[in-house]
């Protein structure tokens, strides 16, 4: 998976592209630290270019959710998920943890 990041008035935008799997474990853990950072007020995962997530990826998203709520940053937004990603997110009822927007 390729990740590009930018921060805009306290919001961390994370653009994800490709396949998000167990192989991204290390890179994603570094991302968790950034989410916890003091200057970040909210987090958006832009999933428009994301093609695939496996079960480990769903677990990592839950860790991000934990990190965000632990630091009182509110719900993370999952934006523009489609295809298999959309399907996995909805089978797992992720609407309970995340703001899911088109």
């Amino acid at each position, binding site marked *: 998976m390729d990740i590009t990041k930018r921060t805009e008035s306290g919001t961390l935008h994370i653009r994800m592209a490709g396949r998000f799997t167990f192989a991204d474990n290390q890179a994603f853990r570094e991302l968790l630290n950034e989410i916890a950072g003091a200057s970040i007020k909210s987090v958006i995962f832009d999933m428009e270019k994301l093609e*695939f997530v496996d*079960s*480990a990826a*769903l*677990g990592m998203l839950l860790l991000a959710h934990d990190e965000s709520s632990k630091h009182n940053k509110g719900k993370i937004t999952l934006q523009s998920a489609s295809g298999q990603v959309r399907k996995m997110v909805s089978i*797992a*009822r992720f609407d309970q943890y995340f703001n899911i927007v088109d």
Partner: protein
Amino acid sequence: MVSDMQNTPEIHHCPILVVEDNAISRQFIENVLHERGMRNVLAVNSAEEALNCLEHFKPELVILDLMMPGMDGYECSRTIRSHPDYFDLPILIQTAVSVPQSRFKAFEYGATDFINKPIYPEELYARTKVHLQNRVYLKNLRHYKDRISDELTSAQQLQYSILPNANELTQLEKSSNTEIAAYFKPSSEIGGDFWGAKPLLASSMSLWMVDFSGHGVAAALNAFRLQAYLKEHIPLENQPGAYLSHLNEKMRKLLLRGQFATMFYGIVDSKHNRLSYSCACTPYPLLYNSESGRSELLDGTGVPLGVQDEQYPTQTIDFNPQDILVLYSDALVESGYGSNRSISEHMLLETLDRHHHKSASEIRDALIEMFNHQHYGMINDDLTLLVCKRK
């Protein structure tokens, strides 16, 4: 690291074969090695003799002279190297010839390293030590790898053994008035997939399919633990949703954050022609409805087990004779995603429609065949498939 390398006591017991025709040089090398604690040195005076004693002496290092009457060091080196047992035996060439071409040639003939005459004791010892240490490290790594791979093989056999066996299945089919056919293939080693079923009172049975997130040992250990519980434990709850909620509580205590399990748990009641079930993030189960003559997708949505406090609802549907329930792990539809080789739920429904009149095992085979055809039999995830057909 340096002190670690200096303390490799095993190297002092490694057999070292010295091949040198000159008696004085031979004695010199032997003395240098003995004085520095090498306890297993055999010195011979020709290449022919060296080759003769390879098999019983089993050297870990050969210190070889190049210029010898009879077979020379090049030929000796090549002969040793051509034997499959010695493909990686270090061969240290010692010679007075200083033209680089002779060194190139020696490497070509299988030499590992070089030492020039006159030999300095410290250099000889240093090179000997390096080669023997590498040898010991490599050997330890190989042992470790062999042991792990043996253990994974037995773990994989254990994974098969926790699934219902043929006898149990026959009993179950009889008591629940169903036909059951399953397919189970762990990915490369071991993983977190399993299924199970057990008879309940009055021609009903419970059946489940579980997939722990991730692969490997941690997922497999969790799988063993939950399977043992499901097999032994008699649920107080007779509603699948209530039982999933109970299991979710257990999982929340057991699993680390970021780990979870997906699960289908259902009760087939053949007396009342009903199936009640509850899902925690399972791919859409398939149901062939004999009344409508069509296959459909059941709702598999639900928060995975082990994530948060959650109440799982129970769905209850008709499950009449000739109806078919198909459960599968996500590998079936996820593999090859993004290529045109991925299997859609639509294809599964179509296959089920086409084969619904066949036996459970024929339907299973048809689904697996479609899968293998689509993926040339290659998958990188655990694959589990369960077909349950009402009689």
